[in-house]
C-alpha cells in the first residue's frame, strides 16, 4: 500500500542571551558542573524568577522573522512534572498565550518550493543535565543548563518527508542565526528537534496515530530517525497492528528508535498561570522597533546575490543558508572585490573544510580577510592557481596570512620572460621527439612539455607565459 507521511516538528533553540531566563547566572557553555548556578536556577526554597528582557526581545525577533503574529498580551505558565533535571518540579513555559503565533517559512527541496506553517513560538527554560557517574554507577545532576532560555518553535504537520523536515530545520537554523538570537550549535544541543510523525494510506482523510521522538540534535539523526519511524509504522500497519501514541527516543549509534517507558498519569502537566511572574504586554511601538532593527534575512540576501552580484541561484542559496557562511562571503568580497572567485572558493573548498573539521563557518581556521588576500595574490598574478591551492592548505593548517606563506616558502610566481625562456629552451632541446609528435598532430605533446617546464621551475612559472613561449618554439 502507498502511504502518506505527516511530519510536524517542535524545534527548541537556546537563545544566545548572556544570562539565564530567570536569574543573572551566565549561560556560557561548558564550565565545571553546578558553577553557573544560584538559588533561583537550582530551585531553592524562597527563590523567585525575574524574566530576562532579552528573552522576550529575541522571541519576538524570531516571530517576526518567521511571519508570526506577535501577541499583545502574553503570560507564562507552570508545567508541573517530577524529574531530577527539573529543579522546581515545574518548567516555566507558555500554555495558552504564546508570544508568537501563525507564522511560516518557505523551504526548497530540489526544484520544489513549499511553505511550512508555524503554529506558535513560545519561551521556556531549559532543564539541567543528568550525567552517568562512572565512579558509583549512579546519576549526577548538573544544573548549569537549568534556566538557559529556550524558544520552542512548533510547526504545523506540513512536512511529508525526511528531506522536507531537514530542509525546514536548516531553514529555521539559518533564520535564527541571521537574526542573532541563537548560535544554533547542534552538537552542543543548542538546537534540537522533536519529531511528530504519523502515516496514513494515500487518499485517507483521517490522520494516523502519531508518535513523538524527542531530542534529535543533528540533521543526520533527524533524517535517519524519520526514515526509521516511517518504516516502523508501515511495518506495524502492514502486519495488521496499530501504531501506539507514544514518546520515543532515538539512539543514533544503533540507528534505532525505541519507545520510552512512561506512566500514563505522568502526562497530566497541570498547567496554570505562573503566579511569580507578571503578564507580558507588548506595545505596537515595541514590536515596530524590533521589526525596524531586524537584520537582512536569508531570502533577501539570496535575491541580492543573484541580481546584484550575479551568483548562480544554486550557489547563492547555499551561501545564504548559513549566516556565518554568508557573513564570511561578504567579508571576503569586501576586501578583494572578486565575488565570483570568493564564491568558487566557498563552493569547492570551504564547505568541504568545515564539514571535515566539523566546525561552524564562524569557526574556520582562517579568516575571510586571509581568503581575500589569497584571491588578490592570484588576481595580481603573484601566484598561480595551482600554488594558491597549496597556500590554501597551509592556511587551513596554520591560519597564517597567505602573503606571509608565499613569502616564507618562496612561492612567488616567476613571470620574467627571460628566465622562463631559458628553461623552455633547455627542455625543448632535450625533447626533440615531442616536437615531432606535436607536428604530427599529437596535441598531448604540448601538455607534456609544459609539465616538464613547470617541474623544472617547481611550479612557480607563470603558465600563460610558459605556454606562449613553448608554442613559439613548436610553431617555428
Amino acid at each position, binding site marked *: 500500500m502507498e502511504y502518506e507521511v505527516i511530519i510536524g516538528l517542535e524545534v527548541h533553540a537556546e537563545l544566545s542571551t548572556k544570562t539565564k531566563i530567570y536569574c*543573572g547566572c551566565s549561560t556560557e557553555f561548558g564550565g*565545571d558542573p*553546578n558553577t553557573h548556578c544560584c538559588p533561583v536556577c537550582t530551585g531553592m526554597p524562597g527563590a523567585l524568577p525575574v*524574566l530576562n*528582557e532579552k528573552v522576550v526581545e529575541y522571541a519576538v525577533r524570531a516571530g517576526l522573522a518567521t511571519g508570526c503574529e506577535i501577541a499583545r498580551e502574553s*503570560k507564562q505558565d507552570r508545567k508541573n512534572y517530577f524529574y531530577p533535571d527539573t529543579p522546581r518540579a515545574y518548567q516555566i513555559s507558555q500554555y495558552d498565550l504564546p508570544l508568537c503565533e501563525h507564522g511560516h517559512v518557505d523551504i526548497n527541496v530540489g526544484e520544489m518550493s513549499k511553505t511550512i506553517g508555524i503554529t506558535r513560538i513560545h519561551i521556556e527554560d531549559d532543564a539541567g543535565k543528568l550525567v552517568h557517574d562512572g565512579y558509583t554507577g*549512579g546519576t*549526577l545532576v548538573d544544573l548549569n543548563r537549568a534556566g538557559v532560555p529556550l524558544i520552542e518553535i512548533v510547526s504545523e504537520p506540513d512536512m511529508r518527508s525526511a528531506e522536507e523536515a531537514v530542509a525546514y530545520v536548516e531553514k529555521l537554523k539559518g533564520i535564527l542565526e541571521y537574526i542573532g538570537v541563537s548560535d544554533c550549535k547542534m552538537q552542543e544541543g543548542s538546537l534540537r528537534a522533536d519529531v511528530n510523525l504519523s502515516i496514513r494510506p494515500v487518499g485517507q482523510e483521517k490522520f494516523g496515530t502519531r508518535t513523538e521522538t524527542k531530542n534529535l540534535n543533528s540533521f543526520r539523526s533527524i533524517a535517519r530517525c524519520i526514515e526509521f519511524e516511517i518504516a516502523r509504522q508501515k511495518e506495524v500497519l502492514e502486519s495488521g497492528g496499530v501504531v501506539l501514541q507514544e514518546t520515543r527516543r532515538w539512539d543514533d549509534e544503533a540507528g534505532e528508535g525505541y519507545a520510552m517507558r512512561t506512566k500514563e*498519569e505522568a502526562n497530566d502537566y497541570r498547567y496554570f498561570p505562573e503566579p511569580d511572574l507578571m503578564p507580558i504586554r507588548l506595545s505596537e511601538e515595541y514590536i515596530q522597533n524590533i521589526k525596524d532593527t531586524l537584520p537582512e534575512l536569508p531570502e533577501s540576501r539570496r535575491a541580492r546575490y543573484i541580481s546584484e552580484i550575479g551568483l548562480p541561484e544554486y550557489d547563492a542559496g547555499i551561501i545564504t543558508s548559513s549566516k556565518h557562511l554568508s557573513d564570511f562571503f561578504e567579508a571576503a568580497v569586501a576586501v578583494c572585490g572578486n565575488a565570483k572567485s570568493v564564491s568558487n572558493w566557498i563552493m569547492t573548498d570551504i564547505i568541504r573544510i568545515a564539514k571535515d573539521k566539523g566546525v561552524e563557518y564562524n569557526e574556520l581556521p582562517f579568516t575571510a580577510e586571509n581568503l581575500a588576500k589569497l584571491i588578490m595574490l592570484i588576481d595580481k598574478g603573484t601566484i598561480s592557481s595551482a600554488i594558491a591551492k597549496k597556500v590554501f592548505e597551509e592556511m587551513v593548517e596554520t591560519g597564517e596570512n597567505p602573503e606571509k606563506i608565499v613569502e616564507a616558502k618562496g612561492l612567488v610566481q616567476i613571470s620574467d620572460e627571460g628566465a622562463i625562456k631559458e628553461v623552455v629552451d633547455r627542455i625543448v632541446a632535450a625533447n626533440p621527439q615531442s616536437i615531432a609528435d606535436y607536428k604530427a598532430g599529437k596535441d598531448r605533446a604540448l601538455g607534456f612539455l609544459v609539465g616538464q617546464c613547470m617541474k623544472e621551475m617547481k611550479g612557480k612559472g607563470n603558465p600563460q607565459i610558459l605556454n606562449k613561449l613553448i608554442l613559439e618554439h613548436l610553431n617555428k
Partner: protein
Amino acid sequence: MISKEEIKHIAELSMLNLSEEEIQKYTVNMQDIVEFANKVNSLDTEGITESAFALDTFNVFRKDEVRESFDREELLKNAPSSNGEAYSLPSMMN
C-alpha cells in the same frame, strides 16, 4: 463525588505514597472539602475574566546582565548526597 481511585491517581501525580488507611481518610476529607470548594460554582461568573493576581501589573523584566553565580560548595551543602561537584542520585538507567 470524589472516589478512592481518584485519590490514588492524584497521589500518583503528587508523588505521594498513601497507605490504605490514608487513602480512606483523605477520601473522606476531600469529599467534604471538594463539596465546600464547589460553592464557587454557584456564583454567576458569566463574562468575568480570571485574575491570576491581586494587582494589575505587567512587564516586570530584568536586564540581561551577568551576576556572579553562587559558590558551588554553598549550593551543594544542603544536598542529601553529592560528590562535591554535583547532586548525586541512584542510577536513572533502570
